[in-house]
């Protein structure tokens, strides 16, 4: 038992690496914020674009969304990070992580929102249009609020998954929390930094999970 706590819960080790770990946590939060914002916006845009019913555009969107949802995010990041240089493009790990993870979120958001938009009853569209609302007004005030409400539970789940995926950025040399903890663990031969990192992630993610749980309730109550 003594070995366990000195190897996993060693406060001295954690303390000496705390600045790095905190810096890593900050990067994790930066990544998450950027990715969530871009992913949700682009995903919504794609779903709206799909409403235009242009055959060619739809094909592109569907292919993009399917491929991005089928491939493991880590695979996507590795291909982008190590493949782009062959095209003459050298992006930072941070940029790659942002682009890839935002694309994944966008793809899932598009699918979910598209299902939501299709579920909002046709009557809502018609009532809004027949009072003279423009397409954008109808979407913004009447349809999108209802669509998002329909998909809020699975969407919350996706947002959580995306935030967890920021840990993957450690593989492409982004100095986020896991990466820092990994390095610290390597240097110190002690697993305590990983414990600290785990706690850090849980601090960010547990509240989100609890909110997601709350979102699953109203449907059952109705």
């Amino acid at each position: 038992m003594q070995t366990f706590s000195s190897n996993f819960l060693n406060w001295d080790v954690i303390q000496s690496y705390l600045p790095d770990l905190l810096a890593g946590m900050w990067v994790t939060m930066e990544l998450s914020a950027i990715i969530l914002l871009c992913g949700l916006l682009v995903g919504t845009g794609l779903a709206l674009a799909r409403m235009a019913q242009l055959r060619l555009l739809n094909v592109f969107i569907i292919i993009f969304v399917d491929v991005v949802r089928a491939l493991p995010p880590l695979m996507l990041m590795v291909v982008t990070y190590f493949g782009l240089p062959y095209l003459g493009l050298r992006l930072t790990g941070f940029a790659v992580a942002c682009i890839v993870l935002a694309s994944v979120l966008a793809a899932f958001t598009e699918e979910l929102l598209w299902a939501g938009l299709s579920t909002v009853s046709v009557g809502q569209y018609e009532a809004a249009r027949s009072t003279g609302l423009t397409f954008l007004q109808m979407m913004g005030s009447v349809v999108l609020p209802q669509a998002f409400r329909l998909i809020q539970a699975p969407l919350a789940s996706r947002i959580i998954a995306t935030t967890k995926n920021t840990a993957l950025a450690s593989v492409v040399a982004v100095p986020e929390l896991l990466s820092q903890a990994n390095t610290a663990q390597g240097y110190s031969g002690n697993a305590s930094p990983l414990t600290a990192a785990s706690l850090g992630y849980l601090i960010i993610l547990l509240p989100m999970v609890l909110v997601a749980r709350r979102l699953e309730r109203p449907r059952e109550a109705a």
Partner: protein
Amino acid sequence: MRDAALHGPGQGRAPVILELQGLHKSFGLMSVLRGINLAVHEGEMVFLIGPSGSGKSTLLRCCNRLEEPTSGAVLVEGRDILGRKVNINQVRRRIGMVFQSFNLYPHMTARQNVTLALCKVARKSKAEADVIARRMLDHVGLSERIDYYPRALSGGQQQRVAIARTLALEPRIVLFDEPTSALDPELVNGVLNVMRMLRDEGMTMVVVSHEMRFAREAADRIVFMADGEIVEQGTPSEIFGAPRHPRLREFLSSLGTV
């Protein structure tokens, strides 16, 4: 030169609010409207009756371009609204529509349902819109439920909110697409009363409905449709008392006594 069939009896002098000329509508190979000619005068209440599949709802929906006619013209206050250059959103302010399934926005209160288009389409300020909404909801007898959500309202109340929502924009004509078909029988009268009130106030109305008793008592003109065409039209006493076309007779007898 006034074609009685087009304009109906006794409406010679009132201006024509809505006119359909040679209206055709096909869905793929299926022809739903085959050359409809109809003129609705100011203050008239026109009832569209007919068996299901006769095209009544489609006809109504062509009037505000929720369906796009395949050919023909729809003239609102003399101007064709089918052109590509027409600002359909502004046109729709002049044409109100009440749906069978009410279609209230579930995420908004009764008041907000009414003020939405007032703010976004009629560009009223929030304060102005509120005043109008209050007045409209009061008019349909729902002033006490102004901040209720649709789920807290009965079907009849929801439909009345829908009517208020439409009236708020001060349309020249209101189209009713089976307004009471989705209501429990005891709630139907509440809505019919509001419709009677509107008619008495001089609103131009086109109603698709199965409420034959109401049609008999309230309509100025009844138009019978079958297979996408207007087969016969006339005053209620003509249509119900002395139906001429065999299709109409068949239809009326299938309804039992009215």
